[in-house]
């Protein structure tokens, strides 16, 4: 029974990660990728796009890891 509860919790976590991945891929495709692929006249705007893109991706990875830690220690192991 406990295993099924854990399974449901991890499935929920994966569903959240999947939904946020779609959001992050959208942000990357509208910031980082065009800044690298297309030569822009406005260099400052390109630099800003790269920074926003990289910051979003880094924040997503860190948020994913933090969420998993919370999931494990607070939800599953109930410390």
């Amino acid at each position, binding site marked *: 029974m*406990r*295993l099924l509860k*854990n*399974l449901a*919790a*991890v*499935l929920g*976590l*994966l*569903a959240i*990660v*999947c939904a946020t*991945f*779609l959001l992050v*891929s*959208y942000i990357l*495709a*509208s910031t980082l*990728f065009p800044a*690298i*692929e297309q030569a822009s006249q406005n260099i400052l705007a390109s630099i800003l796009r790269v920074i926003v893109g990289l910051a979003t991706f880094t924040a997503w*990875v860190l948020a*994913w*890891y933090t969420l*998993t*830690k919370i*999931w*494990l*220690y607070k939800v*599953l*192991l*109930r*410390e």
Partner: protein
Amino acid sequence: MNPSVSRLIKIFYLEFSGILDKMLEALASFLTVIAVTPLMIRLGRRVGMVGVDVHKSSKPMIPKTGGLALILGSLIALLVHMLLNHDFHSLIFLSTGLIAGFIGFLEDFRGEMNPKLKPTLLLLASIPILVTGSYVPRPVIPFIGRTRLYKIYPILVALAYPVTCNAVNSVDVLNGSMIYTSIPFFAMSSIIAYYRGNLFILTMSLICISILVALIPYNRYPAKIFPGNSGSLFIGGLMASTAILGRIEVAAIIALLPQIMNEMHVIFSIGGIKSAKEVKSRPVEFVDGFLTASKDRSAPITLVRLLSAEARVSEKNMAYMMGVLAAFTSILAILTDLLLVEAWI
């Protein structure tokens, strides 16, 4: 016969005769793995390519040569495919897996490789696709549509191999776990390839499913053989090639989320890419034949640890549960592709 019924039968025949052709290669690879694996078990014992089955009380030594059976099975399928279709495109597909599998074989044969050297070497697996220019740098991204990534895409192709291979390698921790988590990925790629009419990727995916299914009787609990690093890196290489050549990049990432999550969290929780020997605390404890999550905060966070929190789980059930996670993300991948990607194709 009613004309509409005969028309239906004709459509059914045309639709499925194409798939039945593809099944021939899959059947050849399935039979090869079934026949060759017992020989690989003997070979592994003879040359000493064995590993400890840590989740058993008796700690038996099990041959790590299952990967060689998978490789032989796909080589036979490739031969049949080339003879039937005169299509040499499959050589590119298989060569990526062979390079990754060879790196894994070196590790199985000579002992653990430098943990930082392994991902660097795995970049080599991307060479066949990059050199032949077999990729299309225009992936469809949900809500955006078709993009043009002429500069970034080759870099992503190169990175896809170490990421995917290590992710697949990281879930090969229990009897059957690598197989149960990999089959849903290839089932997902088969379904997408089928409705897109991509017969090449459909064939390759069916071959991958059949070699994996053929190894189940030997690798399921209690395992008689391990896929080894050669097997998991070979399968990881083929997954990356399926994603790139099949143009299912977004779906592939979603389907591989459990494996990527496992690998990424291990790296984060132990503070970098390190050898398993450097990690003092184990993620799970093995007590009275059951797995249970470690409560040690310094232990790596893994899928097995998440699933066994406050629970006592048999190795067999744990491997099935890992397969369920992979099946769930593969379904999410198909839904994403159908709802958010297919409209742009």
